[in-house]
C-alpha cells in the first residue's frame, strides 16, 4: 500500500523541527515533500544576529543541509513557494506549476516583517530584517554606507543595530515608545540597557514616530518624523514587528485571525491541515520566539504520527538579548498592578537590576539586568507555578543552583574565557560547548549533554551549561518544566503519574506496568526500568516482583563495579564500630583473595577493592559480615561520633543510637542512596548537618535534621523536630524516610524531594500529624519485615549463574 502523503509548506525552523520530531516517532509513515521559498536548506534563524555582527558565518548556522533531506527521503522543492492549496482535489500547487497531492498538509509559513504604511519604504537602502537575504543585504550595505537608522527598539531592532554598529556603521535607533524593549523590560532595566548600548556607540531617539523615509533620487537619504525633525541615513532597517503569513491559508478558505487559527492539537479548521510556528494563532496568541515553535512541533508530530497524545496549551516565553557582553533576561508578566507584589534589587552603579513580580505567592514575572545567572531558575518556577512563600526571603538572591566542585568556583558563565573548563568530570571547556551548540544546532540541555558530555556525569556544572546555552541561543532556550517532564523517551507519563498508576491499578511487575501505561518500547530502557522496579516494590512490599535484570549491575551483583570490571566489597559495620575478630577476618580475606586495595571509606567502614566477580560469593562467605549496601540506592551507613560513653563533651550515647538506627533500617531500598549520622553533642563530629537524616544529641534530647547533602552540591540539613527519647528519633526519622520513599522521583535525593514539596509539608506529615507519622513508620517497618541479607542468600547459592562464567 502506498504511504500517505505529507506536504510541508515552509522550510523554516518550525516545519523542519516538526519533521524531525515526526521522523523520531514514525520514520517510515509518510511520503514527505517540502516547499520552501528560500533557495537553501533549513537554517538557524535565531543566529542571524551573530552573522550580521560578524561573529558567525552563514555556513555556521545551517541546521539541515540538502543531504539531510536526501537521507530522510524527503523531496525538497527549494526556492519554490507554494501558491495554492486545492482542498477539493487535495493538492498543493507550487509557483512553477508543480503539484503535490496530499493526505496531510503542514503549514509552517512563518511570518513577514511589518512594513510601515508611509512614503519611501520602496526606496533603495530600505530593508527589513527577517532572513538570510535581508542579512546579506545589510552586510553589503554596511560595507558601503556610513549612517544607519533602525526603526524599532525591540529585540530584533536592537540586535540589528548592534550588528550594524559592530560592522562600523554609525547607528541611530528610533523608537515610538518611551523606552526600548517595552514588551520585555520595565523602564528601569530598559534605561540601564540603553545606557550600556550608548556606551557601545549606539544613539537613540525615543518617542519618535516616523512619518516619511526621504530619498529624492531613488536611494534613501534620511528619515523624517511627525515632529518635523529629520535625521540623515544611507541605510534604513525596519524592525517594528512581524505579521503571520496567512495569505495561502486564507485563500484556501481556512479560518484565520491574526494568524491561522489552530486547536490544541495544532489542527486548522480543516482537520487534514495542520499548522505550526509563527504563522498560527493559538488561543488568541501568536508567538514570534522560537521556543514555543518547538513545543508546537512536538505536539503536532505526535498527532501526525497518530499517537494522538499531547496537547499544546500555550507557552510562557522568556527573552534574552543576544548582544555580546550585555545580560538581559525577562519572562512572564512584569507589568505589576493590583494584586501583585514586587521584589526589587537595584544597583545602578554596579549595573545590576532585578525585579521579581509575585501574585498569590507565585512568581509571575521576572526582569533581570546585568546578572542573569538565575534566569533559568526563575523561569522554571514561573512555568511550574511553584509556591514561593517559603523561599521568599532569599528568592532575590537566586538559587546558586551550581554544584560546588569541578569548575573552579565559577558561578557566571559569561565571565569565563573559552578555554576554561566547565565540566570537571568530562573535561569539557566553555569554547567546546559554545562550538557544539552553534555547529550542531543544539537547543536543549539534553542535546548539549549528549553531544558534548558537559554536565552529563555528576551534573554539578548544569547551571553553568544552562547559562552558556541561554546566552548562545537566546530566547530559544527553555528550561524543561520539571513538573511535566516525562520519565524518559519510552513514555509521556511523569514519575508522579507512573507511581500513581502503579498504586491505583495494583501493578506489581514491570511488564504489567509498561503494558498498562502503553510504553512506546517493548521493555523500556536503562533509565526507566530501574525506576519502575523500585516503584513497583515500594508500592507493593512483599508482593511487587523484583526484576534483577532491571537493576543497575551494582544492585544486581551486590557489589560496586570498578573501572576495570572488578568489584568492591564493603561489609556493614553498624555505627562504624568493629571488633578485632572482624578485622582479622577482613585481613584474612584480603590475603586469601589477593585483594589489591583496602581503604577506609568516608562512611566509617572498610572497602575491599579489586575483587573478581567470580570470587564474590566466596569473599562474602569468608567475611561472614552483612552487606553494607554500599552499592545500592538504599540506606548506606549511619555515621556516629564516640558520644557520651567515652567523649568528655558527649551528652548522649550517639554510637548506640547510630547502631540502633542502622539495625532498624538496614536493607532499605530508596529512590537514591540514603546517608545518616548521629552526633553526641552540638560539636557535631559525625557531620549530621550534611546527611539525609542527621541527629544531634543535646542535653535534653535529640535534634533531627533532614535533607542535607555533602556531595555534588553542599546542602545544609534543615531542622525537622526535637524529641526526648531515642525511640522517638527512630519513629520520626523512619517516617520521614518512608515519605521520601513513597513520594520522591527515582534518583532524587532527599534534598531534591524536600525542595519540591517544601519542608512545611514534610513537617505536617511527619511532626504535626502523629497519626500520619505512625502510619508512615508502620509502612516502613512492614516493608523491611523479613528482608534477608543479599550476601547471605548468595552464599547459600541464590542467583548463582550471575557470578559464573562459561569457560570454553
Amino acid at each position, binding site marked *: 500500500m502506498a504511504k500517505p502523503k505529507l506536504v510541508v509548506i515552509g522550510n523554516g525552523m518550525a516545519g523542519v523541527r516538526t519533521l524531525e520530531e515526526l521522523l523520531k516517532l514514525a520514520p517510515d509513515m509518510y511520503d514527505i515533500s517540502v516547499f520552501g521559498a528560500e533557495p537553501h536548506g533549513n537554517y538557524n534563524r535565531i543566529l542571524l544576529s551573530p552573522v550580521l555582527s560578524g561573529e558567525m558565518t552563514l555556513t555556521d548556522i545551517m541546521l539541515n543541509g540538502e543531504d539531510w533531506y536526501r537521507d530522510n527521503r524527503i523531496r525538497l522543492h527549494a526556492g519554490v513557494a507554494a501558491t495554492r492549496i486545492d482542498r477539493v482535489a487535495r493538492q498543493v500547487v507550487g509557483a512553477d506549476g508543480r503539484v503535490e497531492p496530499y493526505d496531510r498538509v503542514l503549514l509552517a509559513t512563518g511570518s513577514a516583517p511589518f512594513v510601515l504604511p508611509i512614503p519611501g519604504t520602496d526606496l533603495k537602502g530600505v530593508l527589513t530584517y527577517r532572513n538570510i537575504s535581508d542579512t546579506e543585504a545589510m552586510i553589503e550595505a554596511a560595507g558601503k554606507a556610513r549612517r544607519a537608522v533602525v526603526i524599532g527598539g525591540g529585540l530584533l531592532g536592537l540586535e540589528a543595530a548592534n550588528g550594524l554598529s559592530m560592522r562600523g556603521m554609525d547607528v541611530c535607533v528610533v523608537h515610538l515608545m518611551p523606552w526600548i524593549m517595552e514588551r520585555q523590560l520595565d523602564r528601569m532595566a530598559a534605561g540601564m540597557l540603553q545606557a550600556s548600548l550608548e556606551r557601545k556607540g549606539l544613539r537613540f531617539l525615543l518617542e519618535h514616530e516616523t512619518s516619511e523615509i526621504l530619498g529624492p533620487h531613488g536611494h534613501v537619504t534620511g528619515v523624517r518624523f511627525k515632529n518635523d525633525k529629520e535625521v540623515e541615513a544611507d541605510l534604513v532597517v525596519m524592525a517594528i514587528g512581524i505579521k503571520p503569513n496567512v495569505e495561502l491559508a486564507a485563500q484556501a478558505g481556512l479560518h484565520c485571525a491574526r494568524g491561522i487559527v489552530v486547536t490544541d492539537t495544532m489542527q486548522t479548521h480543516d482537520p487534514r491541515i495542520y499548522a505550526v510556528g509563527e504563522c498560527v494563532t493559538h488561543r488568541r496568541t501568536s508567538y514570534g520566539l522560537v521556543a514555543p515553535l518547538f513545543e508546537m512541533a512536538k505536539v503536532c508530530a505526535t498527532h501526525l504520527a497518530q499517537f494522538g497524545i499531547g496537547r499544546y496549551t500555550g507557552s510562557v516565553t522568556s527573552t534574552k538579548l543576544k548582544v555580546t557582553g550585555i545580560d538581559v533576561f525577562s519572562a512572564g508578566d512584569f507589568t505589576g498592578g493590583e494584586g501583585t507584589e514586587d521584589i526589587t534589587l537595584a544597583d545602578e552603579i554596579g549595573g545590576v537590576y532585578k525585579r521579581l513580580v509575585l501574585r498569590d505567592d507565585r512568581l509571575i514575572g521576572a526582569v533581570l539586568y546585568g546578572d542573569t545567572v538565575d534566569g533559568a531558575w526563575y523561569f522554571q518556577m514561573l512555568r511550574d507555578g511553584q509556591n514561593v512563600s517559603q523561599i521568599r526571603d532569599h528568592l532575590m538572591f537566586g538559587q546558586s543552583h551550581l554544584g560546588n566542585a569541578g569548575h573552579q568556583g565559577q558561578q557566571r558563565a559569561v565571565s569565563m574565557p573559552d578555554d576554561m573548563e566547565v565540566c570537571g568530570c568530562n573535561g569539557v571547556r566553555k569554547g567546546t560547548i559554545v562550538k557544539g551548540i552553534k555547529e550542531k544546532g543544539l537547543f536543549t540541555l539534553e542535546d548539549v549533554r549528549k*553531544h558534548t558530555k558537559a554536565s552529563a556525569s555528576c551534573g554539578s556544572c548544569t547551571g553553568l551549561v544552562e547559562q552558556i546555552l541561554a546566552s548562545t541561543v537566546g530566547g530559544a532556550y527553555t528550561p524543561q518544566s520539571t513538573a511535566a517532564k516525562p520519565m524518559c523517551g519510552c513514555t509521556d507519563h511523569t514519575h508522579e503519574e507512573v507511581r500513581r498508576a502503579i498504586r491505583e491499578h495494583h501493578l506489581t511487575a514491570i511488564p504489567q506496568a509498561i503494558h498498562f501505561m502503553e510504553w512506546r518500547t517493548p521493555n523500556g530502557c536503562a533509565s526507566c526500568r530501574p525506576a519502575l522496579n523500585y516503584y513497583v516494590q515500594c508500592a507493593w512490599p512483599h508482593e511487587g516482583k523484583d526484576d534483577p535484570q532491571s537493576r543497575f549491575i551494582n544492585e544486581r551483583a551486590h557489589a560496586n563495579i570498578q573501572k576495570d570490571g572488578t568489584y568492591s566489597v564493603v561489609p556493614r559495620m553498624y555505627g562504624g564500630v568493629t571488633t578485632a575478630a572482624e578485622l582479622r577476618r577482613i585481613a584474612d580475606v584480603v590475603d586469601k583473595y589477593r585483594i589489591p586495595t583496602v581503604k577506609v571509606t568516608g562512611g566509617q567502614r572498610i572497602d575491599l577493592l579489586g575483587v573478581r566477580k567470580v570470587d564474590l560469593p566466596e569473599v562474602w562467605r569468608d567475611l561472614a559480615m552483612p552487606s553494607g549496601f554500599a552499592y545500592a540506592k538504599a540506606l548506606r551507613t549511619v555515621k556516629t561520633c564516640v558520644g557520651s560513653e567515652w567523649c568528655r563533651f558527649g551528652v548522649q550515647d550517639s554510637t548506640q543510637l547510630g547502631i540502633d538506627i542502622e539495625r532498624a533500617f538496614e536493607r532499605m531500598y530508596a529512590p537514591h542512596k540514603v546517608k545518616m549520622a548521629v552526633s553526641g553533642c552540638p560539636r557535631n563530629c559525625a557531620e549530621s548537618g550534611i546527611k539525609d537524616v542527621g541527629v544531634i544529641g543535646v542535653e535534653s534530647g535529640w535534634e533531627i535534621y533532614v535533607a542535607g547533602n555533602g556531595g555534588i552540591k553542599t546542602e545544609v540539613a534543615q531542622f525537622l523536630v526535637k524529641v526526648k527519647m531515642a525511640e522517638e528519633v527512630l519513629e520520626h526519622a523512619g517516617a520521614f524516610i518512608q515519605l521520601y520513599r513513597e513520594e520522591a522521583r527515582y534518583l532524587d535525593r532527599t534534598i531534591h524531594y524536600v525542595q519540591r514539596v517544601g519542608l512545611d509539608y514534610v513537617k505536617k506529615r511527619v511532626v504535626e500529624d502523629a497519626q500520619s507519622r505512625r502510619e508512615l513508620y508502620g509502612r516502613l517497618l512492614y516493608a523491611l519485615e523479613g528482608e534477608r541479607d543479599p550476601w547471605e542468600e548468595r552464599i547459600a547459592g541464590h542467583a548463582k549463574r550471575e557470578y559464573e*562464567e562459561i569457560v570454553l
Partner: protein
Amino acid sequence: MKPNDLEDAMEWIEVCQLDDVPVLGSRVVKSRHGSIAVFRNGDNEAFALLDRCPHKGGPLSQGIVYGRTVACPLHNWQIGLEDGAAVAPDVGCVRRFDVRVDAGAVFLKL
C-alpha cells in the same frame, strides 16, 4: 577449506543453553578471543559481542539490556546488540560474533 579464508577457519561452537542466559540479560563466555558477552533479549533473540565497550573498555555483559541495545555499566554508552555500534552521537564499535540458536542451544561462530 580455502586456506586464505579466515571466515572458513571459524566453526560453530556450542556454548550454553539459551535458558542459561537470563531474559534481558547476558552470560560471559571465556574464549580464545577474550571474554565474549552473550545476550538474550525480550524476544528471545541471542547476540554476542566482545565484552569490551568501545568507549573505555567496560564489560558490556554487566549492562542493562533493552530492545536490541545494551547500556554499558561504566558510562551508559548505548551499544547496538546486532552490529556492536554505539548509538549516536557517541561513535565507536565493538567486535560482534555470529550467533545461532538451535534446539535451545546457543552456538557461536568462533
